[in-house]
């Protein structure tokens, strides 16, 4: 976004550091650092980094040593961190994980669409559309109250039991549908909070320019609302990545189910640890990304506050 400060060009001249922004005349110092002060700062930063690394390394060594010296450790290692077991099961786990990824990729866009539509429906003011508003409110009330796993049971076992014509009785289909319904209710509330966070003066300003109510929502309110809720939405994404494992209760061989099969055939739990590692490998980057987005937005907001 071009609301950000222009990247600053650093130019070193003799001992003095000049920071020249692209818009000021070259040669006019905008920021001036005392070289002694700057050298001290740099030295301190380097020292802090070294001390931090050393401290962390020491901590890991001490804890690792302590754990490996406990009497139960060999058994724990054999049961949970078995190298050959890991090598034997990991490829199968990765394979099974593709199903989680597929469920996630199909569910997420549907959740966003349902969440947005329900959020909009809940704020409808037209009396003719009251039924829509009531349905949307009921939907949110119900699906936020019922545990996700219960929804999965209900849809995954319940609907196929009806043996309806033309209705799929595929477990992955109903498991995904249950996740979509459950998360859709949460995401709808997130969107609604976002819409509420846009100050009413924005709507008033847009209407005063002749924009219709719909145009105001579309061009003025929603873009700001969505921007405001990106961090909480990312959190829900992360949660959904893990919850794809819940579909395993219906039987399809996804990551958790595969690990369960491996573990029960050998009485060794290394496969579970492998499954955990795979989930973590996906959620950690997402979490870091969410942190980064959040930090960026905080910075932007504080900048806007001073402008």
């Amino acid at each position: 976004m071009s609301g950000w400060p222009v990247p600053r060009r650093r130019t070193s001249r003799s001992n003095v550091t000049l920071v020249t922004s692209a818009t000021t005349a070259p040669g006019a110092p905008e920021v001036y650092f005392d070289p002694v002060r700057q050298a001290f700062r740099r030295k301190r930063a380097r020292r802090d980094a070294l001390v931090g690394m050393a401290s962390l390394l020491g901590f890991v060594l001490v804890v690792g040593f302590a754990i490996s010296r406990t009497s139960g450790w060999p058994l724990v290692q054999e049961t949970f961190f078995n190298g050959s077991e890991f090598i034997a099961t990991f490829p199968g786990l990765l394979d099974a994980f593709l199903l989680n990824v597929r469920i996630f990729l199909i569910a997420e866009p549907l959740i966003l669409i349902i969440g947005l539509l329900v959020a909009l429906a809940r704020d409808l003011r037209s009396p003719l559309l009251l039924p829509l508003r009531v349905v949307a409110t009921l939907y949110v009330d119900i699906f936020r109250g019922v545990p996700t796993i219960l929804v999965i049971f209900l849809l995954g076992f319940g609907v196929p039991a009806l043996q309806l014509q033309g209705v799929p009785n595929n477990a992955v289909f109903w498991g995904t549908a249950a996740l979509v319904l459950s998360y859709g209710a949460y995401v709808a509330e997130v969107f609604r909070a976002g819409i509420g966070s846009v100050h009413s003066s924005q709507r008033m300003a847009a209407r005063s320019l002749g924009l219709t109510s719909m145009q105001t929502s579309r061009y003025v309110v929603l873009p700001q609302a969505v921007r405001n809720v990106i961090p909480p939405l990312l959190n829900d994404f992360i949660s959904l990545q893990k919850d794809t494992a819940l579909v395993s209760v219906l039987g399809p061989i996804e990551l958790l189910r595969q690990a369960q099969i491996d573990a029960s055939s050998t009485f060794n739990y290394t496969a579970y640890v492998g499954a955990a590692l795979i989930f973590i490998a996906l959620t950690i980057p997402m979490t870091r990304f969410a942190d980064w987005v959040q930090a960026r937005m905080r910075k932007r907001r504080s900048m806007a506050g001073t402008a």
Partner: protein
Amino acid sequence: MTNTLLDIAGVWKAFEGNSVLRGLDLSVARHEAVVLIGASGSGKSTLLRCVNGLETVDAGRILLGGDLDVTAFKTDMDAVRRRIGIVFQSYNLFPHMTVLDNVTLSPRKVLKRSSADSIEQAMALLQRFGLADKANDYPDRLSGGQAQRVAIVRALAMEPELMLFDEITSALDPLLVGEVLDTVRDLKAGGLTLIMATHEMGFAREVADQVCFLDAGVVLEKGTPEAVFGSPQEAKTQEFLARILK
């Protein structure tokens, strides 16, 4: 064709049983600059918001251009707002859009102008008010004075017949008030009809054709700046002016 652009007759407006406008009458001629003065809470903002339909009146009639009844039940308010611009104390720029997008949004979406046409028009307006170099900036990079001038340009881009200004300099650093008032002066010179609520008495005296003193929801006294500021007839006007000019 009559020379009256806006005719407000017997307008009442209450909030929760508290009447803010009490049968207010006001007539604005084309090319006239009307300045509303009055104590805080006297109903200046409420009046302006009723004129462009941001509030609905409880009784009375507001006629625009002799033909469009702003207060009629079946009037399309979006059509009213297309013909009347308003600028608020808080600039209310859209923070997620550049200055240029702020200005071109409603010409494109409401007037269905082409992108190229609306950009050309917006740039001409920004140029005229010394804002051309800000076109691609986001509002959070603007000073208060610049932001308020962009808000004025954004309203002007709809080519309104009537402009309403609601204390547009009240939120500004005193040093920045001048540039915004210059903009209004410029518009007045260009023949735009405008109604302005303000506490800037010096400016009111200079730019107004008609000064209206609002008190308790009616226009208690009105006239030329010379008459109202020079020899106010009503005791309340005298009191208000003595207080504010002190």
